[in-house]
């Protein structure tokens, strides 16, 4: 028994989303369980309850921050944007009526915060063709006839993160919105102000570029292993 083995005397029940997936606090007490429900917490937050604000932050911080970090590829900017997203959430929470899922509402708000930021920085959000350095769009064609090593097996998460961070901003935006966050092309077209066809085309190019980056990374690793 862990508790007995380590002689733990002062533990409290932790309404925590551990490891980012699901609430691991068993509803031992149904009253407490009810208290912890999203609707209850949101209602409390709408009345300015500090605990409720913090609970909402704890539950959603990873997703919001990860979104900001993936879209900016910059830790300091991502922290500022996550902060801004939550502040906007708290300022507007009184207007949330529950017509949509709270998480959907928050993530849309977060995407808007990031898009506004990128526009302020004059980074082209959707004029994607120009974002890739010359010749990068031909990456797929280069593969044919070349010594083509497939990415067989699985893709390491950290390597994928780095590859995504290395994408040109426009490619990264579409990839994160579609493949990471699950937005549809018509939604991306609407919020980013581009055509559906453009969104599809840029997503495909982003994936091809990622494939190149991941293969390059594996080739470098293999080279190091041989040298070592």
């Amino acid at each position, binding site marked *: 028994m862990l508790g*007995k083995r380590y002689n733990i005397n002062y533990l409290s029940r932790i309404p925590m989303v551990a490891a*980012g997936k699901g609430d691991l606090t068993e509803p031992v007490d149904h009253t407490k369980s009810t208290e912890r429900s999203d609707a209850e917490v949101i209602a409390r937050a709408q009345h300015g309850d500090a605990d409720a604000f913090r609970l909402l932050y704890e539950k959603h911080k*990873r997703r919001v921050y990860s979104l900001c970090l993936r879209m900016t590829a910059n830790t300091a900017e991502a922290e500022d944007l996550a902060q801004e997203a939550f502040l906007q959430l708290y300022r507007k929470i009184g207007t949330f009526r529950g017509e949509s899922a709270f998480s959907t509402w928050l993530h849309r708000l977060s995407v808007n915060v990031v898009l506004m930021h990128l526009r302020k920085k004059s980074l082209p959000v959707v004029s994607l063709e120009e974002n890739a350095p010359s010749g990068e769009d031909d990456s797929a064609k280069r593969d044919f006839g070349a010594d083509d090593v497939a990415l067989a097996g699985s893709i390491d998460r950290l390597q994928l993160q780095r590859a995504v961070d290395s994408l040109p901003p426009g490619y990264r935006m579409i990839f994160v919105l579609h493949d990471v966050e699950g937005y549809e092309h018509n939604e991306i077209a609407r919020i980013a102000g581009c055509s559906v066809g453009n969104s599809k085309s840029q997503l495909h190019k982003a994936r091809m570029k990622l494939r190149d980056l991941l293969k390059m990374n594996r080739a470098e690793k293999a080279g190091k292993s041989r040298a070592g």
Partner: protein
Amino acid sequence: MTCVELQESLAEVEDGTTPEQRAHLRTCPACSALVNDLNLIINAAVGLQEAEEPSPRVWNSIETALKREGLIRPQKRAGSLAHSLFAGWTGRWLAPAAAMLLLSAALLVHNRMQTNTVSEQTAFTVPVPNPSDLNDNDLMQEVAENAPSMQAAYQANLQQVNESIRDAQAVVDESPNDEDARRSLLDAYQQKSMLFELAMDRSLP
């Protein structure tokens, strides 16, 4: 359909399931490998959704702003759940096992950074608790006894956090001075320590 046409068609039908695409893929190993790789990337992308933990200073800044703007009022219940949770992370009840896990991670990461320096010898004189002392079976046994309905959730979380540790550890091993990798490793250990704390919480009378 040529290889170039196949590739262009993937923007519209990404999984290669049109009759024309299928016909080409049956005879072209390079394009088959391409479609497989793209599917791997698509599947792995979902794993980035909650991959990062923000620094504690993010909440500190939010809280300061909320107070400044008068958006929050002081909590009424001194013993509320959230108060216990958030005061507790830096407080007296931080479970020894979880702390040991984090300490182990920090020391291990620290030691790896020092591999080529004189301080390495000093670092290795520090007794490093072994995270494996706190094995997963203990945790699952605790959950089974005190929260049987949560076994599946714990098992899934444990598996995920172990995979994160393994991934990050591999990168740290390869590049000991990589800041991002070390941070990821510590984050992963922090998540695991959280699981242990939750399980131990249930063991109380």
